């Protein structure tokens, strides 16, 4: 496999945090602008994949260990369901919006949709990273 040129290496190392920041923006403003949990999560995943491709899987492996990622994936989903249960315990129906709605157009405007987006983003990001690790390590 020919060597990755140094330009690409430096750029990815520098750009990596900004990609994550962009992902967070997408997730947090999911209910305002186009975006949301899934899209933000995909950005997270692509950041990790980018790192894996450029730095090589072993380096990213010890930074983002695979079973840690799959653990966070499962915990993310559990939190999503528990959020649904919280709505139920507070007397409304399942997955209902129990937080007060802020005024229109600002981040806290959609009540607990923000937390849903966060968990989904988290889960999708780690899930895609896990898929990437499995496919890279697959040898026929």
């Amino acid at each position, binding site marked *: 496999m020919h060597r990755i040129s140094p330009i690409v290496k430096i750029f990815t190392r520098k750009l990596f945090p900004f990609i994550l920041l962009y992902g967070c923006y997408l997730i947090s403003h999911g209910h305002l602008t*186009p975006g949301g949990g899934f899209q933000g999560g995909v950005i997270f995943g692509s950041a990790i994949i980018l790192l894996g491709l450029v730095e090589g899987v072993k380096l990213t492996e010890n930074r983002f260990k695979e079973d840690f990622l799959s653990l966070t994936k499962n915990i993310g989903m559990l939190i999503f369901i528990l959020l649904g249960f919280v709505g139920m315990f507070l007397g409304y129906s399942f997955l209902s919006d129990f937080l007060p709605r802020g005024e229109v157009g600002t981040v806290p405007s959609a009540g607990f949709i923000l937390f849903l987006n966060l968990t989904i983003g988290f889960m999708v990001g780690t899930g895609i990273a896990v898929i990437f690790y499995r496919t890279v390590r697959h040898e026929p």
Partner: protein
Amino acid sequence: MINGISIGIVIVLVGIYGILTRRNIIKMVMSLYIMNSGVILLFVSIGYIVGGQAAIFENSKKLMVDPLPQAVMLTTLVIGLGITALALALAIKIYDEYKTLNTRKLLEK
């Protein structure tokens, strides 16, 4: 007349043509995803109101496009992703075992 719905139908037909005639299973998975995106385009354009604004709410009372199909199509996209990822994984395993991607050769193996 050309609008989102007719193009969506055309894309679905292209997908169906692809899945029926292609022998290679990777191409079949691709045409499956084409069919899926064709339906998504059709469904979204059903909710389109001419001259409507994107369904982002800034307390202005302008005419807005129907947001429901778009939300629903988000889920279909995710499902399409899952299905295609799984189909490709299966295709890889099939290639590992049978060393061929041609459906006719696969039949005999």
